[in-house]
């Protein structure tokens, strides 16, 4: 490459520096610190010692990590892969054959939960699932017995809340995808009865399968990283019943001051994100004409 051609690409440098300093460096530091006993305070804060794989061994000797990993899987599968994905697709399909005014209004309602700042959405969800909250009031009106959702079924409440908060993204993706499906095919596929379902399964879904794949990757990555919603609604409790990996990493590092162990948990999450990210980038490359 000649100097002249090199100079042309000079404007990319600020972005590269930012990405190196604030994304790559923390990731590298995370993997390094996870092999030390770094702490928030005390001797290990000033002079962390190399402890080898101790933190990773500890992960599997304590119950908190396997439990958090399992809860994370349940949370991601239930609220993103099933909840947001299926509901988003369903809403988008219904929109293709409902009146414009109805679909615009409902679209706004779905998007509102998504556009609100996450802390406000989290407060609203907390109030909704509260013992005295709206959900129990509705249950009461229907003659049922209210439950203390956040205490008895914290993960269920969080899964529902995250589905509520995130479905808009899948809905927008699928609306765009369905808009590109030739109209007569979409209509035919949605017409009455079992035959409609068959056409949906054999015609419409195969036509939008690349959108489904990319959407699944993106919402999985987003849901893997959810922290605020869980922190406000249950703070990971009671007794770790809603502690997913991001919450566990936060608690270990900041509540118990164990940066080494916290970064080990974070490193596992980062690795997970990298695997999903690599699959996502591959998907997009294959899709390109």
């Amino acid at each position, binding site marked *: 490459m000649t100097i002249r*051609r090199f100079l042309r*690409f*000079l*404007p*990319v440098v*600020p*972005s*590269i520096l*930012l*990405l190196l300093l*604030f*994304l790559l460096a*923390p990731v590298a*530091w995370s993997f390094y610190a996870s092999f030390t006993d770094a702490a928030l305070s005390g001797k290990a804060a000033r002079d962390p010692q190399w402890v080898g794989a101790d933190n990773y061994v500890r992960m599997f000797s304590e119950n908190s990590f396997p439990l958090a990993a399992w809860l994370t899987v349940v949370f991601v599968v239930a609220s993103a892969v099933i909840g947001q994905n299926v509901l988003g697709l369903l*809403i988008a399909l*219904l*929109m293709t*054959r*409902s*009146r414009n005014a*109805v679909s615009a*209004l*409902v679209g706004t309602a779905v*998007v*509102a939960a998504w556009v*609100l*700042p996450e*802390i*406000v959405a989290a*407060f*609203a969800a907390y*109030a*909704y699932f509260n*013992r005295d*909250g*709206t959900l129990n*009031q509705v249950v009461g009106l229907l003659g049922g017995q209210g439950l203390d959702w956040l205490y008895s079924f914290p993960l269920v409440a969080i899964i529902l809340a995250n589905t*509520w908060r995130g*479905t808009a993204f899948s809905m*927008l993706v699928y609306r765009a995808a369905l808009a590109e499906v030739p109209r007569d095919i979409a209509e035919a596929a*949605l017409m*009455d009865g079992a035959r409609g379902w068959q056409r949906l399964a054999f015609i419409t879904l195969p036509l939008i399968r690349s959108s489904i794949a*990319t959407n699944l990757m993106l919402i999985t990555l987003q849901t*893997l*990283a959810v922290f*605020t919603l869980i922190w*406000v609604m249950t703070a990971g409790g009671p007794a770790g019943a809603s502690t997913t*990996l*991001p919450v566990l*990493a*936060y608690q270990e590092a*900041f509540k118990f001051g164990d940066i080494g162990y916290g*970064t080990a948990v974070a490193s596992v999450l*980062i690795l997970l*994100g990298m695997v999903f990210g*690599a699959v996502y*980038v591959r998907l*997009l490359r294959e*899709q*390109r004409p």
Partner: protein
Amino acid sequence: MEGATAGGRSRFRAKLGADIALAVIGICFLAPLLWLLLAAVDPQAGYQTKVPSAPSLANFSAVLTPELLFQPLANSFLLSAGTAAVNLIAAVLAAYPLSRYQSRFNKPFMYTVLFGTSLPVTAIMVPVYGLFVQLQMLDSMAATIFFMATTTLPMAIWMTKNFMDSVPLELEEAAWMDGASAMAALRRIVLPLMRQGLGVVFIFVFIQAWGNFFVPFILLLSPGKQPAAVSIFSFFGQHGAIAYGQLAAFSILYSVPVLVLYALVSRGMGNSFALSGAMKG
């Protein structure tokens, strides 16, 4: 359209069914927001959703104080505008050569950047905290802005490049003929033509930063620097006695700017979502 034919009738019925199903879903999505709206105007609000017996704006006037609302909102604005500005400058600079010059590094670079969007930010917060301690950047507004800008930078570069690709190259070639440098052409010809796209990117990043809770929660320590997302949490979320109505009023005041901004660009944003790497590559 809906004639008296059998086909028309069944289509009408199908339409009605879809309308009803959608309406039910819409109501379920609105239900959690109902409390927010009603409690905000109810001085005696609890976690119950009820029509206030004596509705008033008392909750709003209670939170309209400098330390409770204005300072945190000013901090939010500073953080978000700073993040969006840093983001936009870096993204425009990076997008220009990537959009205008062919190189075998372009594609790998764009895909590496895209890969960067995949890192779960919450997972990076523990190491970022460690990094900020080492570099003595903790509690620094500027450092927080640069970090927040970086987390949204990959998406911003993709969006900006896609917007820039749609500005025809011929327009600049004329300017180059007249002796203008690349940067001058960028400033005088390309940027004015993609004003709308730049606005979308700016607002997109601004909205994300405005709603961000976790990053400033970890990186900003002094109460005087915390944005509304964090101050609302430390005021209402951690204390025993909660003024529910004030919490709701505060939440609404804090949400209004992003709702307005989103409404402003929702069309362009939907477009750019479709355009950006996120969906089509």
